[in-house]
């Protein structure tokens, strides 16, 4: 066990899988120069063929990766900032997600598309650079979506994603880059599609995603002093979503707060809320609370941006409403 930051854990996951499997290679903009800090020294260790700089051509990157995957490779594509996936949207939806189905199971597209969500105080990136767009991809059958919330999880989930036979999109939150946690030294995988109860509790279930998980845990610690036992469930994988773990938790606590940094409409939080409302309605002892970013664009001004996202205080307020 050693302390690693989220960014170091991404490096370890990539390095270990490149060492383990010759079919794995990395392609993306500026991966050779290690611009984003996830590929330090990789060109020297693995060569420029496997650590491949691409043109700024996202649709091409996605489609080329899909083609290579169909003939037996395991590409890991670094799209850098999450909204840069949009130019590749058709390739992701029409080719990457659908080829296995469309061709009656003849095709496998084992790609991993990594991207970073870069928003908030440290970024001030304005409307086109600040997106948290994972729910768009949850909507499409055939894609798996992970949103890792800690160094420990990002390593285990990414390694599992690279070994998975389906396409996986990994949405990594830049606000977590410098957070550290204990990471096992051995080769470990976190199965895709399995939620993690990050904090056990009895009074209210908070389902939190990505960077909102540490906020929910902090809220739980603060409310414990008042005798409120908060259970925090981290889905880790949004598609396929581990509905059972979420439902089991709500059946126990009778209350749900769903937290998500994405926009409210058609968010992961709204899907989680809909699942609980339809499958565990009789177990609910109060109205479901949803804490998301409101349905507006992200403004450039830090003054305007600061209050838009979920935070610990908003989660605490939502928990109190759920308990009221």
């Amino acid at each position, binding site marked *: 066990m050693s302390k690693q930051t989220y960014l170091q854990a991404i490096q370890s996951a990539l390095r270990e899988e490149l060492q383990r499997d010759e079919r794995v290679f990395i392609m993306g903009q500026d991966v050779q120069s290690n611009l984003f800090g996830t590929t330090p020294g990789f060109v020297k260790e693995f060569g420029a*063929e496997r650590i491949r700089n691409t043109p700024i051509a996202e*649709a091409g990157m996605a489609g*080329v990766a899909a083609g290579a995957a169909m*003939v037996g490779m395991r590409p890991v594509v670094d799209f850098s900032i999450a909204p840069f996936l949009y130019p590749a949207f058709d*390739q992701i939806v029409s*080719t990457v997600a659908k080829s296995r189905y*469309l061709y*009656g199971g003849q095709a496998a597209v084992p790609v991993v598309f990594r991207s970073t969500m870069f928003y908030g105080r440290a970024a001030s990136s304005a409307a086109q650079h600040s997106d948290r767009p994972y729910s768009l991809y949850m909507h499409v059958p055939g894609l798996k979506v992970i949103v890792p919330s800690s160094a420990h999880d990002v390593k285990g989930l990414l390694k599992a994603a690279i070994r998975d036979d*389906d396409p996986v999109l990994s949405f990594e939150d830049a606000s977590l880059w410098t957070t550290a946690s204990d990471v096992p030294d051995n080769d470990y995988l976190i199965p895709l599609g399995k939620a993690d109860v990050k904090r056990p509790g009895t009074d209210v279930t908070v389902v939190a995603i990505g960077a909102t998980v540490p906020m929910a845990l902090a809220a739980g610690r603060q409310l414990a002093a008042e005798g409120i036992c908060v259970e925090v469930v981290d889905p880790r994988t949004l598609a396929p979503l581990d509905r059972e773990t979420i439902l089991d938790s709500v059946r126990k606590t009778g209350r749900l707060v769903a937290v998500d940094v994405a926009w409210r409409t058609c968010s992961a939080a709204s899907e989680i809320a809909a699942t609980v409302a339809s499958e565990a309605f009789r177990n609910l002892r109060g109205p479901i609370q949803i804490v998301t970013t409101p349905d507006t664009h992200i403004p450039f001004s830090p003054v305007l941006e600061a209050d838009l996202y979920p935070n610990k205080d908003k989660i605490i307020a939502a928990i109190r409403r759920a308990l009221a």
Partner: protein
Amino acid sequence: MNAPLSKDQLAEMYRRMQRIRLFEDAAVDLHKRGEIPGALHTAQGQEAEITGACMALRTDDYMVGNHRSHGHTIGKGARMRGLMAELLAKGTGVCKGKGGSMHLADFSVGSLGETSIVGSGLPTAAGAALGAKLQGSDRVSLCFFGDGASNEGTFHEALNMAAIWKLPVIFLCENNGYGQTTPAAQVVAVNDIADRAAGYAMPGVVVDGQDVLKVHAVVLEAVCRARAGEGPSLLEAKTYRYLDHAANMGRNLGYRSSDEIERWRRRDPIVLFARALRAEHGFTGGDIESIDAQVAREVEDAVAFARSSPPPALNEAFTDVLAGTRSS
């Protein structure tokens, strides 16, 4: 130089062209009768460029196509039973009845899938070539696309990436003169799409798409270049589709004159090739007729197989979404 084609190879070339023609004759008929659901995009008139290109490839080379998809898979060597069953949406179809006419695929002969989003297959083909290169194999990849697709951004992205990485890929533009009903001349800025190759520092070659041997020679040269590690090529076959963009879509819209259609039909690629086989390659009229008869029987057999096949099991709607959802 490449060795001249053997008589067997020439016969196979003619056979595949005739398979495409008769397969589509049958498909048009079945579509009219309501036995084939959905859209039906035929390639009749384009058999020479399809077959000439495919026969310059090995069976283990990769091929990616488009929505006008029947000819490519037949040209690449797929058996017609599974293809026809797919058109009839049967469980015995190559895609288990989930892909249909626009999305045929037969991975066993290197056909990685036809795609119905215009231009979307170009990066896939470049990616298959990248995979082959990284694996150290000498396989090449060929992508069929139309004049319309050459205006898509994916065309530019795929050709540029293939060029900078010297990928073993052949981009073959089937320029049939029209994107649906819009003349290529109205929406393509260059006279020859092959001229666009200059922007990617790769060879660009125009070829008569109605002459199967000319297409074969040009594609074979590009294949040799790709296998030798010298990178991609952009080829443009000038060709024509006899029928409308898709069955029942023309509705006498008047975008092509009957004179124009007749002019192209006078250079029918199958008639031209049959004539050349007799005049220059020692084939008799009997040789040609016996291939025609054999292909007609194959198509009848494929139709009978498709008709007698069961529809997909209902649970197939939910299989092959993810790796863990295979059919039982």
